[in-house]
């Protein structure tokens, strides 16, 4: 495409206001949050309804034009970056939300942000279980397409665990209604789950229905500091081993704590690691829960444990975790964000491996994240996205991914594959299941998208 005739035709079909094709728009929409990836789309279509998506996919199918669905463009892996032109499908204008308290569900269009959905649920005394760090901007569609999670992953996992049904538009414009908006369903092959994490390579998710959960009556927050990074990791393991279900269970290593303290001057004690836990429950039970967690931290040699139930005090001790990404971002111009997940029993080994790899490649690597579900985000801090330092950082990140897989985990937890982790996905799939799984996946892609126009160059493509 690229030809003015086709862009004019697209404008005729959708209306001129829904198609952007000026060079400025094309430049801006060529990026996501991955820093190193960028592309040049031919045009941007702004969808306001499923009908708009249908019209575009019919047009794209007819003219063999790649379509790259996009929510907020906050992917860290190049997911919505156009590789070889094509049309960016901006779903942000589709943002209607409907909470159904009686049925315990919320229906949201793809372009609504996770935070908008959560705020709507809160009006009724409920909350949206999933809370990625980018919740204020990340869309429901993007979070589904990447199987995003977040801090409350310790309790609720990723968005896969709460989606019940969805509307999907396939290449050619066919609309599918997958799943059913009820808590139990047996509908043959689970296509709703297949679309989760498919990164726009099979079709366009236009809306979905999710489970919602009641707001906790009371919350408590515990922040524990450790002199040994493995003690902290073992404490997390013990919490889960004893069957406790915190709402949030976060890990921060020494580099993270130092970064946060140097940027925000919080007066944090020098420590090898810290663990932050949020517990929730009835007012009568909260103190007991807090003490249980506190005791586990002390058992694992925590030298300082802060506890808060007052909202202001809770916010204060949350600052150490909240400031992690901004602080690390301020210290290093370029950050490679890793996204591994390991079995909880292997968490101590994984955090130790981060230190070893950091030493081996001579690059600072901070480990921080939702360790309550075994998910660690590593931040490899660099000064440039080119040259030897970049090479070392890139290799270090790859090695950590391999270690996670060797420990029985995964190289990719909740940030998607995009372009950044394609080679890691292939390696992991082949290690775990052999070539056959890759072939099955490629066959599935062909069934949904025989012309290969959906977000080409991503995942296994």
């Amino acid at each position: 495409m690229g030809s003015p005739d086709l862009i004019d035709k697209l404008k005729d079909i959708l209306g001129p206001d829904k198609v952007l094709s000026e060079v400025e728009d094309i430049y801006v929409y060529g990026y996501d949050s991955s820093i190193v990836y960028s592309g040049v789309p031919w045009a941007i279509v702004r969808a306001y309804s499923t009908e708009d998506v249908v019209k575009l996919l019919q047009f794209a199918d007819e003219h063999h034009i790649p379509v790259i669905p996009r929510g907020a463009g906050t992917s860290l892996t190049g997911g919505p970056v156009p590789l070889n032109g094509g049309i960016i499908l901006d779903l942000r204008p589709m943002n209607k939300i409907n909470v159904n308290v009686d049925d315990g569900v919320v229906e949201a269009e793809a372009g609504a942000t996770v935070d908008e959905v959560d705020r709507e649920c809160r009006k009724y005394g409920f909350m949206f279980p999933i809370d990625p760090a980018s919740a204020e901007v990340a869309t429901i569609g993007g979070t589904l397409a990447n199987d995003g999670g977040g801090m409350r992953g310790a309790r609720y996992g990723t968005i896969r665990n709460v989606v019940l049904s969805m509307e999907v538009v396939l290449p050619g414009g066919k609309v599918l209604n997958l799943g059913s908006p009820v808590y139990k369903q047996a509908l043959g092959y689970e296509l709703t789950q297949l679309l989760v994490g498919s990164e726009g390579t099979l079709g366009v998710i236009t809306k979905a229905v999710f489970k919602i959960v009641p707001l906790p009556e009371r919350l408590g927050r515990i922040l524990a500091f450790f002199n040994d990074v493995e003690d902290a990791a073992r404490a997390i393991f013990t919490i889960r081993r004893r069957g406790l279900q915190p709402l949030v269970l976060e890990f921060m290593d020494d580099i993270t704590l130092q970064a946060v303290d140097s940027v925000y001057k919080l007066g944090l004690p020098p420590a090898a690691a810290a663990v932050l836990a949020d517990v929730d429950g009835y007012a009568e039970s909260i103190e007991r829960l807090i003490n249980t967690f506190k005791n586990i931290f002390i058992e694992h040699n925590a030298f300082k444990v802060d506890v808060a139930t007052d909202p202001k005090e809770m916010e204060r001790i949350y600052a150490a975790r909240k400031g992690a990404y901004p602080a690390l971002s301020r210290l290093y111009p370029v950050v490679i964000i890793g996204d591994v997940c390991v079995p909880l029993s292997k968490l101590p080994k994984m955090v130790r491996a981060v230190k070893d790899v950091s030493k081996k490649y001579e690059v600072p690597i901070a480990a921080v994240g939702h360790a309550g579900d075994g998910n660690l985000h590593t931040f490899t801090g660099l000064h440039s996205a080119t040259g030897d330092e970049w090479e070392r950082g890139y290799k270090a990140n790859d090695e950590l991914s391999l270690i996670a897989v060797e420990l029985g985990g995964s190289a990719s937890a909740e940030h998607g594959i995009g372009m950044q982790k394609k080679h890691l996905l292939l390696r992991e799939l082949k290690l775990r299941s052999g070539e056959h799984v890759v072939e099955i996946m490629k066959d599935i892609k062909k069934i949904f998208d025989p012309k290969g126009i959906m977000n080409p160059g991503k995942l296994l493509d």
Partner: protein
Amino acid sequence: MAHINEKEEFLTKVKEFVDSCKKCGFCKAVCPIFKTSEYIETYSPRGRMLLLQGLYEGKLRPREYLALRLYCTLCGYCSVKCVSGLELTDAYLIGRAYLHSNNVVLSEIRTITENISKNDNPYGIDISVKSMWIDFLPERPTGKSKIIYWVGCTTSLRRVDTATAAYQLISSLVGDGVGVLDSEPCCGWPLYLAGDLEGYKKQLTKALEVIKTSGAEVVVTTCPACTRSLRDKAKELGISNNVRIYHIVEYLKEFEGRLPKLKLNETITYHDPCELGRHMKILKEPRQIINKIEGIKLIEMRGNQLESNCCGGGGLYLPLNPERSSSIALNRLSDVPRGVRKLVTACPSCEVQLSTAAQNAGLDVEVLDISELILKALTATDR
């Protein structure tokens, strides 16, 4: 910011921003322009940073289409969200200066800059009108004074009630004659915002000269932009004089221990002007002053202090897109706590913007300047 008329200079200045922006997009969550433009990425703070990057890389060129997307209200809320801690509005202003040096000046902006050079105010109104607010004072200011009330273009031409209240308030505090300038020029700030840095420097120098000639030792304004221009930016450019310049909130704060008894039984809310709050970091002071009033009940707006939502009136955005600007103001009015009928602020542009939006929407919200509130509390006590 130094004068930018060379591409090299633009490249040097914008590089730090381009290199440091992580493109995380967290800034988009709070941008009033992004929200009111149906979430088009090019109108978002990240979009603006990418437009600057495109100019930096030479992949984009200065032109009106780009300028219309680079312009925003300069509210600075995006900087609060920036994970890299960047002052993003500084980057946007570097971009505006670069556009200006390439003769890309939007017609609405050109009108403002021409108005300043012709009439010494951005509204194109004859300069004589600028002193008409004085007619509404109970007594006319007399002779020279060491303390000058710098009324500013927007206060004098759009908020006469603020001007008269501020003058009377300052007079009652100092207990001596407070002067006003016979022919007060524009402080030049709109030229700075328009990226006309040469023009700004000339206008600012002229304004500072008028102050110097008046013999004033202290200047008090009701306009945060005038304060930033005459004091902060002048200092940065190395052209400030020895005159002490205050925004009325700062001036009242100086008097805090000596303030007369203030009493008023009102429930109010306070809107943080972006210039005064996020840019000048004057956040606690207006609240401390308001809370000096016996009987006052201050209920905070949803979104306050550093997280205050914009009124849509700043950054020269209003003339560029009145419709979007008005939507931003309406959004801000929706942050007024339920049941509160009085909104106090400390910036004439915010007052014009919010009162007009409230009036047009038929909302029962009265917008008043902090000077008006304090004067009222003072007068009520006198009785």
